[in-house]
């Protein structure tokens, strides 16, 4: 009897063990969802093949010449020159003489053949609105030479960009442009600060709304496809510098002039006391532009350049942060306020008021636009390479009335795109590396992520 019971007991135990060990094993596993690792790893290789499809429309101003032949030959030569890296050109002939709407990615080349300037050579002018015009003394029938010069012009416009892209996709070498440029964000807080160091002796106020409308609003509108700006302004008082400027006995009457040398400037901002606000809630990065009015005891205050001369602009830029412009106050006598105090007349000195109108602010605003372009990473589109290929030609550039030409805007958009692609690919790859290195980390279901 006991041996039968023994066999039964042992077999039941063994069956239980055999049944429940797999249950225990499966319930204590670390659940990791499946991630598209291979696809993400392949993204990095695919990145190198990003190409911008650029369209060029060729038009002969005088109506003579063969636009179609020129366009075909130009397209072949341009694509040979760039070798399919970064840019692919589609050139067409534009027969109509009416102005077409300027759109991003479509550039117009106007050729004026058989025209000489004073020196007997041609000229190239870069217009603001995505148009480049080439005036060449070569005859209109000479298609080959015209194409050669056109390749130099159009190719030269985009060669700088290709070098930029190669630099970004390559090793992460940091040059000064990268240090200066703020990281891309779709929204920025733009804060204009007026710093009054000595309100006891001078009350400063500014008509900043009008100044922004007059000078800055056009720039903000021009780049609205790329960035969204929230513009604010504030005035701060009693903002004394943490450094002492040097006193120099310059000036015609031997008057005392205060100056800041370049090595003082890194300590200009009193980070312990001056709080540059911006919203602490919003995650948009802030860009600050400061108009600093020095106190009476330290005015006029100038910034000295490296060549020991005073800067005309009296401003400097802090990379990734913003810009500062020093505006010297005029010497004003204190006003006198008389008021009744019971039965006696009380006379006291009141600090004079100085209001900066919109036209007074035109210089600082122009400086801020220049600094804003630097911080956003707007690069001038120039014809440096072309100048070497077409010696003797005259080169003119039209500057923009809003602060950024359409050429520069397009270049900025392309650069931003390439950088963002690179960042996204890097982030994804680094996440995968991280996840693969931590094997006992639970990865929840990714369905809600993959579907979005």
């Amino acid at each position, binding site marked *: 009897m006991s041996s039968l019971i023994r066999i039964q007991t*042992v077999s039941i*135990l063994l069956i239980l063990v055999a049944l429940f060990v797999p249950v225990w094993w499966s319930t204590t596993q670390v659940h990791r969802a499946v991630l598209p690792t291979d696809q993400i790893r392949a993204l990095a290789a695919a990145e190198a093949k990003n190409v911008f499809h650029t369209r060029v429309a060729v038009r002969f101003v005088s109506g003579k010449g063969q636009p179609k032949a020129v366009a075909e030959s130009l397209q072949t030569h341009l694509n040979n020159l760039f070798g399919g890296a970064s840019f692919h050109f589609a050139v067409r002939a534009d027969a109509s003489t009416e102005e077409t709407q300027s759109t991003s990615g479509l550039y117009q080349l106007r050729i004026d053949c058989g025209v000489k300037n004073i020196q007997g050579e041609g000229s190239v002018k870069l217009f603001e609105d995505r148009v480049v015009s080439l005036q060449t003394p070569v005859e209109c029938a000479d298609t080959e030479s015209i194409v050669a010069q056109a390749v130099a012009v159009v190719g030269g416009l985009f060669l700088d960009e290709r070098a930029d892209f190669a630099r970004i996709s390559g090793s992460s070498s940091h040059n*000064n442009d990268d240090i200066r440029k703020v990281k891309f964000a779709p929204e920025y807080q733009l804060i204009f600060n007026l710093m009054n160091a000595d309100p006891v002796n001078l009350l400063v106020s500014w008509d900043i709304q009008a100044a922004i409308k007059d000078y800055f609003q056009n720039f903000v509108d021009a780049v609205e496809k790329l960035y969204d700006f929230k513009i604010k302004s504030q005035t701060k008082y009693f903002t004394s510098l943490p450094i002492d400027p040097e006193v120099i006995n310059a000036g015609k009457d031997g008057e005392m002039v205060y100056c800041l040398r370049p090595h003082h400037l890194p300590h200009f901002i009193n980070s312990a006391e001056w709080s540059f606000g911006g919203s602490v809630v919003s995650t948009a990065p802030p860009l600050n532009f400061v108009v600093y009015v020095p106190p009476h005891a330290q005015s006029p205050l100038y910034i000295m*350049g490296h060549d020991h001369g005073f800067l005309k602009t009296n401003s*400097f830029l*802090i990379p*990734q942060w913003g810009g500062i412009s020093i505006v010297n106050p005029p010497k004003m006598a204190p006003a006198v306020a008389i008021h009744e105090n019971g039965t006696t007349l009380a006379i006291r000195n009141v600090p004079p008021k100085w209001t900066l109108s919109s036209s007074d602010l035109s210089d600082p605003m122009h*400086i801020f636009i220049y600094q804003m372009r630097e911080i956003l990473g707007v690069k001038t589109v120039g014809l440096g390479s072309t100048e070497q290929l077409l010696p003797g030609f005259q*080169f003119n550039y039209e500057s923009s009335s809003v602060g950024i030409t359409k050429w520069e805007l397009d270049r900025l958009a392309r650069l931003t795109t390439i950088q963002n692609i690179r960042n996204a690919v890097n982030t994804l790859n680094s996440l995968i590396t991280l996840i693969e290195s931590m094997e006992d980390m639970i990865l929840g279901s990714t369905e809600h992520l993959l579907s979005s």
Partner: protein
Amino acid sequence: MNFLNWLVLVLGAASATNAAGGAIRVVEDMRGLDRAALAADFLSAGAGSSGGGSGHTNNWAVLVCTSRFWFNYRHIANTLSMYRTVKRLGIPDSNIILMLADDVACNPRNHFPATVYNNAGRYLDLYGSNIEVDYRGYEVTVENFIRVLTGRHEEHVPRSKRLLTDDRSNILIFMTGHGGKEFLKFQDAEEIGSHDIADAIAQMFEKKRYNEIFFMIDTCQAASLYKQIYSPNVLAAASSLTGQSSYSHHHDMEIGTAVIDRWTYSNLETLEKLERQDKNTLANLFKTYDSSVILSDPGIRTDLFPRGIENALVTDFFGGVQTTELTLEMYKTSEKQKVLPADVKVEFDGRLSSAQKDTLLEKPRYKLKVVLPQTYLINVPFVLCFGLLLTGVVVAGSV
């Protein structure tokens, strides 16, 4: 005559290219005016600030006090002393994340309300009127600390509570509180382990959230907390080694508690003498440690810091670097004028670290150490043997 011949040759070549006129030379990597190259030339000539520049462009500080309750006044004072130091040396509030687990300034037991002092003479009020505490009271948790370090916040978290560093940021992380072997106690309720800190820093490295980290820790057995870090460019300093306790410095009789810890006090004695442009190195700072005064042996970990502590300035971590650039022109938008893209000489000032020295940029990438999952105590072989044991017992028992 030789020079004349050479000149004739050069001019002849120049005119020959002029005459070549329309021939296309396909020049592959022609660049336009390279302002960066101009600036680089300028800087490498003049920038010799310190041998082995750190390559950082901004500074951040994460200052954490993990202890709650009135008798841990000294931990709050430690943290606030560091806060004051980094602010004085130039890091703005927007770049400081200050986490205080308790509010001792407004504690009803505080004899001097709204003040925090770090010495019995009460010379300096650390609390002041210009203080920004980002995480206070019960918000100081292990989860929030790790979220701050790794940057993985929920959407609603405001900007002031985020560590918005990039790969050129130097970060100072200072932690103080009660700790033990490989753990640090948060709020008397939970602990952070040394592996958690090491993994968080590894995540920061993968996401390129720091250039260099200086990890300071003032607790008992503090050196055990930085033992597990395995990411590069991390320098760590601790108040005591494993197995040793850290001690407080002195009491204030009217406040009724200790007001500062010994190791932090020793650091502050040196740091208070520094100004913003100071050139003292971290090696100098470490040399000032005196074990007989601190009553414990400070630990320093330099194996993950290839630059070397003799090259690292104190202000690389405690001060706020700010490069500036003179603006030489303005952009007139009102008139359309002929503007040639002038070759503006870009001039940087301040201590711009040697970003141009390409040799230093190729920092060796360390392979991430793969952490093997801990083998469970109870696993298949164990269970089978246990089952066999049970059956054996049953068999033997029923005999």
